[in-house]
Structures are given as structure tokens and as C-alpha cells.
């Protein structure tokens, strides 16, 4: 996949052509100083444009300066910008429209000071509670945490009234430490706020897992898993962290009651037992503590999505063969044909289709020392991480193609009579790109 081109597209879309040139140069060169950039881009006004471009990128967290004075682009953060509309919608669903406005301000500007936050006319009167909500859910964080005190005192109570402005808000950093974050008032313009982009992935992960449980079991089971995930994910830095904390059943029941869900204890216990079953594996029980098996749930969704992609691309026989190889790990072609109830010719055809697409691998095992082909056994298997990587590459390619098509449509001469139709087509492509990016998140980022 052509990473500089993908990076270039999203930076050009958000910041303009020159910033895109700078970002692409940084990605393709692996990092360079400002002077080198000026020289490479042959700027004539003494580096002013390059400096402004670098400041824009730095403010949005897309580049950083290393110890040697070289600027390096953060490709993964740049790619995250594809998903900003989705993040904005997630925040609106989770925390409300006021919080969405705050987040959108930060997505556009990268970092904002307290003064900018409170003086921006788009952010309404609910900004204090929105800010509090975003901070307590770790979506927002101050840029310099070291400037604040840490303490081992229990956390302060959350404010219920938006008219009261507390001086500090305590949030737990880990099991032992808390940070007392001062809530800024209008006079305090020093605090600079930025988004914790990794939190969006955690929120997306939460949503995927909750949807899975809701659809495969029921709404109440989904509410239980959502309650467990909310308690644990907020405390973790990433999904791959192995130190997910457990939550007691009593806490979950209390949370469900607080959220207004009616709780039938015996039915709830039955649902929890079902989810703790080894063949389901959504939750794990440690005494009265419950632990969400996020990796298991994500793997189930990833696997089923991969199967659906194969079904749509190659047909039901190919999906059956893929599923068989995932179950049985390693098989010869004739065994695969027998177990999948396909004739040998069809089975071989499906295996080679999967192999050409990169979803299946074949290993040659010689039976004689001369490696004679007629005496070799060919063993087929599926390497899931490799299959997911191929799918992610395919999605990247599709995104790039759709964006190129969008660019072509914008550059074409416009005819008045079909302006509305063209606008709809462009929106359709943009929505498709966003959906592809959400798909990509599942296969590449949520691990």
C-alpha cells in the first residue's frame, strides 16, 4: 500500500496542498530538518510556508521533533483523521451534542487553550459539564500532566449541577495514583487541551463488543457487557493491555439500576452464566468479579467479517473451505474435499482462489530426499493474522481508489443540470470511505 499517497490525501483534505506536500515529504524521507524541507520544496520566501505547515502539523499531533532536530510524521495519527466524522458521531451518541461540539473544535484545531474553548461561539452553555464529562471519560486531557499535583485521596464527587464550577476534578491514572485536574475558569488561559485519540478506539471497541452481545444473546446481556467494559476500558491505555480489571457483579447490577434498566436478578444471573460458558467466552468469572474478554469478542467479529468478505468475493464454497481450515488448522486437499463435502476439483479450485487472495497458505512436505514433486504432500492452512493483513491492504486500496475518483469528479467541469446528483454522488463516496475506515479499524487497529 502506498502510504505517502494515503497520508497525502487526508492531509490535503484537511489542511491544504502545501501542508500535504510537507507531510508527504516527511513520510517518504523518514524525517528531515526544516532546512532540508525548505531545500527540497524549493521555497522562495525564506521558509515561512514550511514553518507554518510544520506548526499546523505539530499542533494537530501529526509530526514531532526528535532529539536530532528532525521532524518525523506520525503516520498512524494522520490515518486516524479519516475516521474523525465517526469519532464525532460516537461522542454525540455517548456524551451528547455539547461534548460533540467540544470534540469537533479540537479535531479541527488539534489543541485549544481554555480561553479558546470558552470563548468559541460554537461551544454552548453546557460546556462545563461537557468538558467535565470528556475529562472524566479520558477523551480529553491537558497537554502537560506533570504540571498538576497527584494525590492518593479518594476522588472528588462528580458535580450534578452545571452552575457550580469546581476548582479541581480528580481522575484515576492507575490503581494507586490519581491526578487532580483543575477545571479551568474563564480567567485561566494557560491550560492547553488535546484529544486522547486512543480513547476513540477503545470506545469503538466497546461499541463493537456490546453490539455483538446484544445481537447474539439479548439486550440485557449487552447492557451487562457494556457496564463491565465502561468500568474497565476507561482505566486502560489500550485494548491490548493485559491488565484489564475485573468488576464485581454488585457494581454491575447497581450501574444497571442507575441507568434505569429493570433488573431481574435470576434472569441476569442466567445471562451472566451463559456468557461465562467456555464456548461463548464473552465474560470470565473470578469469584464474584467479572472480566470482559475483549480480545475474544473482537476475534469473533473479525473472523465472521472475514468469512463474509470471502463469501461475497468467492462464494459459499470458498467460505466453507476457509472456515474448515480455521477449524482444522492443517489439511491435505483430499481431506479438505471430504470434510467440506465438495468434489476434489471444486475443493482444489477454492483452495487456490483463497491462496491467490492471500487468505490460505500451502506448505510442501517432501516424502523423499530428492524433493520429487509427485512424492510431495501439500498441506493447506489459514494464517489468520496474514489474512487480516491482506483484508486491511484491500480496504486501504479501495479507500485510495474511491478518493481518487472523488478528486476526479471535483476536477471535472460541472454541468448545472446534474449538480445536485453530483453532490449526492460525492457524499456517497465520502460515506463509503468512512465506512471502509471503520472496517479497517477492526482489522488493523483494534488488536
Amino acid at each position, binding site marked *: 500500500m502506498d502510504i505517502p499517497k494515503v497520508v497525502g490525501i487526508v492531509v490535503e483534505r484537511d489542511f491544504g496542498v502545501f501542508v500535504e506536500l510537507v507531510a508527504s515529504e516527511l513520510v517518504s524521507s523518514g524525517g528531515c530538518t526544516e532546512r532540508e524541507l525548505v531545500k527540497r520544496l524549493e521555497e522562495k520566501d525564506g521558509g515561512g510556508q514550511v514553518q507554518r505547515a510544520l506548526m499546523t502539523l505539530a499542533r494537530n499531533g501529526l509530526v514531532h521533533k526528535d532529539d536530532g532536530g528532525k521532524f518525523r510524521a506520525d503516520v498512524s495519527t494522520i490515518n486516524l483523521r479519516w475516521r474523525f466524522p465517526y469519532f464525532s458521531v460516537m461522542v454525540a451518541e455517548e456524551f451528547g451534542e455539547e461534548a460533540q461540539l467540544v470534540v469537533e473544535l479540537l479535531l479541527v484545531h488539534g489543541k485549544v487553550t481554555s480561553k479558546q474553548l470558552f470563548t468559541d461561539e460554537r461551544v454552548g452553555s453546557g460546556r462545563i459539564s461537557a468538558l467535565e464529562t470528556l475529562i472524566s471519560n479520558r477523551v480529553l486531557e491537558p497537554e502537560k500532566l506533570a504540571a498538576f499535583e497527584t494525590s492518593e485521596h479518594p476522588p472528588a464527587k462528580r458535580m450534578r449541577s452545571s452552575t457550580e464550577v469546581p476548582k479541581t476534578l480528580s481522575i484515576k491514572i492507575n490503581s494507586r495514583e490519581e491526578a487532580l485536574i483543575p477545571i479551568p475558569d474563564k480567567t485561566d488561559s494557560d491550560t492547553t487541551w488535546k484529544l486522547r485519540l486512543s480513547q476513540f478506539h477503545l470506545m469503538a471497541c466497546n461499541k463493537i463488543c456490546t453490539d455483538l452481545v446484544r445481537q447474539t444473546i439479548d439486550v440485557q446481556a449487552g447492557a451487562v457487557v457494556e457496564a463491565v467494559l465502561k468500568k474497565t476500558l476507561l482505566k486502560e491505555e489500550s485494548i491490548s493491555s493485559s491488565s484489564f480489571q475485573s468488576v464485581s457483579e454488585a457494581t454491575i447490577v447497581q450501574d444497571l439500576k442507575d441507568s434505569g434498566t429493570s433488573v431481574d436478578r435470576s434472569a441476569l444471573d442466567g445471562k451472566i452464566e451463559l456468557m461465562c460458558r467456555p464456548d461463548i467466552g464473552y465474560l470470565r468469572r473470578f469469584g464474584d468479579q467479572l472480566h470482559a474478554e475483549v480480545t475474544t469478542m473482537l476475534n469473533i467479529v473479525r473472523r465472521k467479517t472475514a468469512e463474509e468478505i470471502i463469501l461475497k468475493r468467492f462464494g459459499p464454497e470458498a467460505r466453507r473451505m476457509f472456515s474448515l481450515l480455521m477449524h482444522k488448522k492443517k489439511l491435505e486437499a483430499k481431506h479438505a474435499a471430504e470434510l467440506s463435502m465438495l468434489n476434489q476439483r471444486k475443493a482444489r479450485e477454492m483452495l487456490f482462489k483463497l491462496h491467490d487472495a492471500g487468505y490460505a497458505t500451502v506448505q510442501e512436505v517432501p516424502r523423499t530426499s530428492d524433493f520429487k514433486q509427485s512424492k510431495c504432500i501439500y498441506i493447506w492452512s489459514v494464517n489468520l493474522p496474514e489474512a487480516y493483513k491482506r483484508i486491511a491492504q484491500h480496504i486501504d*486500496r479501495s479507500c485510495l481508489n474511491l478518493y481518487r475518483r472523488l478528486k476526479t469528479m471535483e476536477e471535472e467541469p460541472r454541468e448545472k443540470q446534474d449538480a445536485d446528483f453530483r453532490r449526492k454522488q460525492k457524499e456517497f463516496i465520502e460515506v463509503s470511505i468512512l465506512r471502509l475506515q471503520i472496517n479497517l479499524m477492526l482489522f488493523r487497529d483494534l488488536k
Partner: protein
Amino acid sequence: MPPRSRKPRNDPAITALERGVLEAVKDKKHGLTDAEILAALPQEADQNKRAIAYNSLLSKGKLQLLRRALDREPLYAPAKAEVTKLAGLRLNINETALYKLIEESNNKGIWSRDLRRCLNLPKVQLEKALKDLESRKLVKTVKSVSQANKKIYMLYNIQPAPELSGGPWFNENHDYDTECIRIIYQQVTALVKDKPNLTSKEICEKLNDSGLLNEKLTNDNVEQLLGTMVYDSMIAEQKKQLSDGTTKVTYYKSTPVPTHNALTETPCGLCPVISQCRPGGEVSPENCIYIDQWLQGMDW
């Protein structure tokens, strides 16, 4: 030169002598010498007549010739049933050898190349003998599902083994009977929906009782079918470890998992020529006809 004595056609003396010889050797599976048979016969019979009787009984397959290990003297013993049967079929030497080999292979059959290798017969003679046996409906040709090009011979009245015929899931053309399998899928889905957590044995019994198929299904047949249903996500399996160390596998109706598949909803996800797609190339996103069609038919 004296004229050769011809075997009399309906000589009652020979027939009586044959009966006498058979009576003498009856239950003597190790055989008797000529002298012992003579002593056991109720009537005297000269050497010529005895020789004619022995030859007649040997050709009819009622007597078999053995040799005493000590002095290599011939012994006459009652023939085994299969020898009698073969003699009754009136086959020549090649045909008899072929028939014996084919009979030994039982319901698995024997490949024509293996027949030629074992008997070392020229191809023409082998084919003539096999053709003769086939025309007399003593043997038949069967095709294997796994190796359709091989000609496999077996006795006419034997049913081929499941490895050759493929089992209940195959039709006459040695291909999977997809229509029949689809009906069985629906039946199994209904069974596990009504009563979740059935074992393969229970499902097998219910399918056999339903009478959907002409032949009885075995547990192996049903497990093969259930496996494909699991791979197709029609049903799910649950494995439970029992107290005696065995694993109990039960099946239940699976619920669909919400997937996040946007790839195949775009034309690039299903494009057969995506590997050739390049900006400005013959196949390019700028002028792709698949994207054109997709945008024309866009569905919000």
C-alpha cells in the same frame, strides 16, 4: 497304436464309481491315496475306470488333488465350495484366475491395472476374459468417486464400499447430491431449533426415522454433514468435558454475528481486475466502469 479310450457319456458304472469315490473321501480333508480309496470302495474297479472317475470329479470340481509331503504321492480330497462353484461356472484358466482375484477384492474392487500386474497376462487376453465375464454378468465395472478415471472390477452382486460409491450423499453421477443435502440441512436446522443441544447420534436417529433417504445413515455420515453446517454457520457446536474423560459434542442453532463489512459493498471489494488498477492506466479508478455503475445505482 491302440485307440484312445473315450469317456463314456452316461456310463452308469462310472457315475456309480464317482459316487463311491466321493463317499470314500467324504470328511477326509487330508485326502486319501488311490489304494485307500480302492480299499474303501464297495465294488472292485480297475485302474482305468478309477482314473476316468477321478478326472471327471476333478473337472466337475467335486474332488481336489493334493500331494503327500513325504513321498509326493497324490491324494484325493473333497473339493472346497468355491472350487465347486468355479467349476460350475465353466470358465477357462484366465477367466478363473481373474474371477478369483476379483472375488478376493470383495466390495472394494480391484483396478484393471492391478489385475494385469498380478496375472501378468497380455492386455488383449485380459480384456477378452474380462469382457466375457462382464457379458455373463459375473463381474461389473464400478467408478470410484475419488478416482473417476480408474476402472474397478467387482463381482456383479456385491454393493460397492462407501469409499467407492461415496455414501448416501452421492448421486448416480458420483457427485454430491446437492438437492438432497439441502433438504437434509433444512431438516437438521428444524431439529436443532426445536430441541437445542442434540448429539450427532440423536440427530442420526431422527433423520433415519423421518425416512427422507432410501438408505440408513450412519453416525459418520451425519457427523460429516453436521461439520459442513458448522462451517457454513448454520448451526454451532458445543463441546462439554464429561466426568469420565470423554467429550460430548452437541449442536444448537447459531445466531448471526453482526459483521462490519463495508469492503464488498464497494466495487473495489469485488473487482476481478483490482490487481491491474493503476491511476492513469487502462484500468483506473478515474474511469472505472464498475464505479460508474455503482454510483448510478447508489442506495443510501
